[in-house]
């Protein structure tokens, strides 16, 4: 036992020292990191819900949602949603009108899809397709030109990435539709 400590004391002391240092760094930077995340989300809200000027973070049914506000009046919702993509997790911000009837915008917060193919889901042209879609029917991906209201044309060569995004949108909207409509601040 004594011999073991003699061998290992340096490792133990260093572990404690380094652990303390890391705890300090984490305590110092944690707030800043959270702030960055929130700032990115809030900065997108005016683009996700037309007319919105600010956002208020809140938690509903265990998920992060944001009320899109004009002054005191709520004009829409922004939902943080994520799911598995082709390569890795995809995190989205979904903009909805206040009655959760129509999609008003879509933003990709985080993705690691294939550059040049799957990562084109972040482009305005592709994301723009979601604007104005009704939430009444689930969105479907098509490889041809979108013909029906509920269809989204996939990114060429990235059907899985496209379907992942649609699935995330569909399931999130389906999960939260009733809660959101009930919780909206109306005047």
């Amino acid at each position: 036992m004594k011999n073991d400590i003699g061998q290992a004391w340096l490792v133990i002391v260093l572990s404690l020292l380094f652990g303390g240092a890391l705890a300090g760094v984490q305590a110092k930077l944690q707030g800043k990191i959270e702030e960055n995340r929130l700032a990115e989300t809030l900065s997108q809200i005016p683009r996700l819900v037309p007319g919105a000027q600010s956002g208020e973070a809140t938690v509903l049914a265990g998920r992060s949602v944001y009320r899109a506000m004009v002054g005191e009046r709520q004009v829409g919702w922004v939902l943080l949603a994520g799911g598995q993509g082709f390569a890795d997790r995809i995190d989205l911000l979904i903009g909805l009108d206040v009655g959760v009837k129509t999609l008003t915008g879509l933003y990709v917060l985080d993705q690691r899809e294939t550059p040049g193919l799957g990562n084109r889901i972040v482009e305005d042209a592709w994301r723009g397709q979601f604007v104005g879609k009704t939430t009444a029917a689930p969105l479907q991906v098509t490889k041809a030109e979108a013909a029906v209201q509920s269809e989204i044309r996939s990114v060429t060569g990235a059907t899985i990435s496209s379907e992942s995004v649609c699935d995330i949108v569909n399931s999130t909207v389906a999960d939260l539709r009733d809660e959101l409509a009930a919780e909206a601040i109306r005047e």
Partner: protein
Amino acid sequence: MAQQDGPTPLERFINGILPENPVYRQLLGMCPTLAVTNGMKAAMTMSAAVAFVLICANIVTSLIRGLLKPHLRILVFTLTIATFVTIADRFLAAYMYQMSKQLGPYVPLIIVNCIIICRCEVCASKQPVFTAASDAVGQSLGFALALASIATVREILGSGTWFGLRVLPEMWPDWVIMVLPPGAFLTLGLLLGTANWIGSLRAKGSQTSQEG
């Protein structure tokens, strides 16, 4: 612990840059070399993070070199490296949020970057602090140089830009493959071949001049 002979600080510094370049000569640290060189910004941020970790780890290792037990030394190196990598990772997330998102898992993966553990083993655990520090700076510069060379080729051919600035005319059809993983292998292979070719030409040149 008696002072051991070894390369001087200046030799260590110069060796790191070209003669023992970590990427082109030692073929170490291939993971970031291949993964984050699709743009100059990412490559330079990665180089800076590696430089920070390498310099700190070398200095700490050199300071405690007299206390190391031979069979526990790798454990101590890894512990030291992991600490500084975590600090670098948190720092990037706090102050360079977009870049930290782009680099993703490759910052935490610096922990297993062989360059750093190699320098701790070869230099810092045997030589005084100043030598270890100049070795770390030299190796970091060599690594940055190697990443810059690969990233320059890949970003210009693959995106038509350098550091995000347009350098090729708009009509340039971006060679997307250069930004994708195959582009990394192609570029590294060709540059490595060129470096070896130049090396062998110079070796021949010095031979003939000695003979003559």
